[in-house]
């Protein structure tokens, strides 16, 4: 009994990781398969990658997604960073309430947020398009940039500010010369993660993308509903590669900051 229990936890963990990675592995492997099959190996081929890259719908979707990801990540990072700086560095009443409000989009069901944005466009007459997509993605990304930068900012030594002030730096100089450089890695991580969140976003995009501004995930979803093609596997493999790269960059920075003895 005791032995079984001791084995159960590592075995469950191993199975869990197989469950998480096997599907991705299968997808990537069969993206290189020459035939249409996702079972029989018909020789190594990059043909489906080429097909995915020339598909007009997917290219248009990719363009929309990249533009929206960059624009919304810039905005969400700026907004989340300023909110984090306010919470960590400035005294003001209702700080907890303010933090809750900023994090709220993370906890509320995304579909309700999406419905809210759609109904707001109906009410105000704002046309659906890049603007509404960017606004929606900013809304769902802000909690992440806020949490990342807040964690980094609250880890800064307040004596650095005091030392800079003692040496005659004014508020703006302290911010530009001391605070900002120290927070830059966290701000960059926040930007990358916000860009990934926007690029992957599905629910909000379903509601607020307009004609001619269909982002990639919605484009893929439409293709999946009619049936799986190896083209989508190839595209999926490329997206996995990009996402893993971003994670490595972010985690690499994160691990480096941990390893440094403080």
């Amino acid at each position, binding site marked *: 009994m005791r032995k079984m*229990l*001791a084995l159960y*936890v590592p075995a*469950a*963990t191993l199975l*869990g*990781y197989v*469950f*998480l*990675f096997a*599907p*991705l592995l299968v*997808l990537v492997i*069969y993206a290189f398969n020459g035939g249409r099959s*996702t*079972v029989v190996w018909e020789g190594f081929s990059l043909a489906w990658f080429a097909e995915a890259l020339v598909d007009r719908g997917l290219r248009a979707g990719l363009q929309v997604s990249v533009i929206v990801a960059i624009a919304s990540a810039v905005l969400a990072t700026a*907004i*989340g960073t*300023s*909110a984090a700086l*306010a919470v960590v560095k*400035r005294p003001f009443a209702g700080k907890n309430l*303010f933090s809750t*409000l*900023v994090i*709220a989009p993370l*906890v509320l*069901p995304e*579909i*309700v*947020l999406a*419905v*809210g944005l*759609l*109904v*707001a466009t109906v*009410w105000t007459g704002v046309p659906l398009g890049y603007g509404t997509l960017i606004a*929606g993605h900013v*809304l769902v990304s*802000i909690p992440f940039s806020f949490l990342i930068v807040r964690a980094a900012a609250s880890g800064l030594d307040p004596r650095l500010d005091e030392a800079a002030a003692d040496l005659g730096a004014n*508020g703006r100089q302290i911010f530009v010369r001391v605070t900002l450089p120290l927070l830059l890695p966290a701000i960059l991580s926040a930007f990358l*993660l916000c860009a990934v969140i926007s690029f*992957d976003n*599905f*629910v909000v995009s379903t*509601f607020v993308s307009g004609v001619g501004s269909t982002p990639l*995930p919605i484009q*893929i*979803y439409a293709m*999946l*509903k009619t049936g*799986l093609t190896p083209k989508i596997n190839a595209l*999926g493999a490329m*997206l*996995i590669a990009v*996402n*893993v790269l*971003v*994670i490595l960059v972010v*985690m690499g920075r994160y691990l480096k900051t941990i390893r440094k003895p403080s």
Partner: protein
Amino acid sequence: MTAPRRGNLVTLALLAPSLLSAILLLAIPILIVIAFSFAEQDTYGGAKFGFTLTSYRELFQAIYLPIFLNSLQLAVVSTVICLLVGYPIAYFIALRAGRYAGLLLALLLIPFWIDFIVRMSAWMVLLGRNGTINSALVGLGVIEQPIRMIGTYPAVLVGMLYAFLPTTVLPIYAALSGLDGRLLEAADDLGATPLQSFWRITFPLSLPGVMAAILFVFVPAMGVYAIPVLLGGGKSIILGNLIVQLFLDFRNIPLGAAVSVVLLAISSVIIVCYMRVLRSVEEARV
């Protein structure tokens, strides 16, 4: 200008962007949704503001009850499965993995950040009629004919587990990694069996993490819609599909708004309960 006033202006400037986006993109839209849920549908498919309970009355009719129950059932079953699978993983990473804990956590984050729709298409590759699993089973002679997997309820549950497993593990891991190892040693010294010290010490101390996991799985699961469409064939209608259909296919804004308000109300109740329970747990510990 005096120094404190200038300080206040800086604070205000830092707060303004997030307050503005919270008001414009979150608060006002939700208020509009609530207003529309009491509006009347006009003959052109638009909505006319007013105060009528038509939408809610329609919603509480017998045909919509199964949709609520389907969603509730899917959310409860998904949460339970995620906890059963996720808890041992979090336990292993926090208490057994030693120096590999960082690596295991990083690995856990990879599927979490990969495009949702790509993850679902991976499962479509595996579960399809001529998919990897069916072909492997037929090839090995385990089954003679391919089994129907895609379009079934278990396939939906697999998709839900896949989507929400990392979200389940992370908060439980966070709670367990703060556990003082000396407590377990003390229990061991006092003659407790591993099972006893798990139920009397480890599990109670991990409860805040378990509750956070429930919050992060149950609330989104109530509003999920792409997973049941792609892996379940969209056969059993749930709240998420209903909202999408009402808004994007039927253009019935008042009814769609009413469903969204009900979903928001259910989620808010869960979030408030979570915060209450968390507070009482923290107070009990002090």
